[in-house]
């Protein structure tokens, strides 16, 4: 089985970073690429909404939302076993939310394998971005109302920050634009948002490789525990996603995507939201696990694995 070239770019970045090359991408490029990817994914989701009657996918959408609220509640007690409340809540939020890039690499993988999947999965991705963040904030604050640091924000402000975080605005904004403009309206934009999506993803992955390499310092310090969290959680969560996918009656491809979404951890929206909502949590821990371990694990091992799982349970 051949490795997807998209993943090769990640490995190149990772290798360059670990070898301490002076390769560095400008931060403006990183920001630009992430704006582009979020918008493009949103637009794709919006085109789906424009294509099929909304009521037809409403049951599936509700199930996906349920999953988004459930996952952090599920893993929080597990994490509490070893971690303080704030850190457990923050990590739960990261893993309950999703990684747009992992999703995109997963889709590219399925396309290469010739496995079709339901087009509404883009919509699922958008729906999964936020619920876990809300749950994470609630978990972090439960029963500590008196004790919260004076730096922490009030609830109104927090909700504002979670709902209007960059990722959410771009995903939902893209969704709205795609739905309003429809395939014909978006056509003149295809040369950028469609055709260049995958190639641009390669540049983003190159940068992610460099960033992940920079996280190895934390990994060395936090050692085994972080590695365990970063590998066990996605393996576990992939089955939650696969379960929901089966419940929703999706194809093998669709079930795989649900598994990938559940197993992926957010490293754009969640860190920003948690930093403001739960400043007592150690950001190195959550980002170290989500970005330093789970992200590369899913890219290199997880995606094909979840596909096998899904093929197994759907009997494909």
């Amino acid at each position: 089985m051949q490795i997807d070239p998209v993943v090769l770019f990640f490995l190149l970045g990772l290798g360059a970073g670990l070898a301490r090359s002076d390769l560095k991408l400008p931060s403006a490029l990183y920001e630009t690429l992430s704006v582009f990817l979020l918008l493009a994914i949103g637009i794709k989701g919006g085109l789906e909404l424009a294509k099929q009657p909304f009521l037809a996918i409403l049951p599936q959408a509700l199930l996906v939302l349920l999953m988004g609220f459930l996952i952090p509640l599920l893993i929080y007690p597990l994490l509490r076993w070893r971690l303080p409340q704030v850190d457990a809540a923050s990590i739960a939020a990261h893993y309950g939310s999703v990684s747009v890039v992992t999703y995109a690499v997963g889709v590219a993988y399925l396309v290469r394998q010739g496995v079709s999947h339901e087009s509404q999965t883009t919509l699922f991705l958008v729906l999964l971005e936020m619920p876990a963040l809300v749950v994470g904030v609630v978990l972090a604050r439960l029963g500590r109302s008196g004790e919260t640091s004076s730096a922490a924000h009030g609830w109104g402000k927090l909700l504002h920050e979670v709902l209007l975080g960059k990722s959410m605005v771009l995903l939902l904004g893209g969704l709205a634009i795609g739905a309003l403009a429809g395939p014909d309206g978006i056509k003149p934009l295809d040369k950028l948002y469609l055709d260049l999506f995958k190639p641009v993803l390669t540049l983003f992955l190159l940068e992610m490789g460099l960033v992940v390499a920079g996280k190895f310092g934390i990994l060395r310090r936090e050692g085994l525990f972080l590695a365990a969290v970063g590998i066990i959680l996605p393996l576990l969560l992939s089955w939650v996603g696969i379960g929901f996918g089966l419940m929703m009656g999706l194809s093998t491809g669709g079930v795989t995507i649900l598994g990938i979404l559940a197993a992926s951890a957010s490293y754009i929206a969640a860190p920003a939201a948690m930093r403001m909502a739960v400043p007592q949590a150690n950001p190195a821990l959550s980002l170290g696990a989500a970005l330093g371990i789970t992200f590369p694990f899913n890219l290199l091992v997880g995606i094909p694995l979840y596909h096998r799982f899904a093929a197994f349970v759907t009997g494909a």
Partner: protein
Amino acid sequence: MIFHTRTLLTIVTEAALENDLVELFHARKLRGWTIVEARGKGDHGEQHGSFDANHNIQIELIADSAAAEQLAETIQQKFGGDFALVQWLSDVRVLRAEKF
């Protein structure tokens, strides 16, 4: 022209705090400040600046000595516990005393 002595407060902290700090300045009726993008290393680890959640800002704010000291103390109390934060004060001379 005459130069007047004022105090310059320099704050280096996480970019995520910018909005909160600016609100604080407004609440204190401070009239001006300057912000520069930065990165660095401290007890909270390295801030590379390559990544959204990993990026410092450096704020410079000139005020009279009492206001600058009080501001530094408030910021330290409010944010010093949970955020990467370093502040320092120094004496500077300015031209238009009424501005600061």
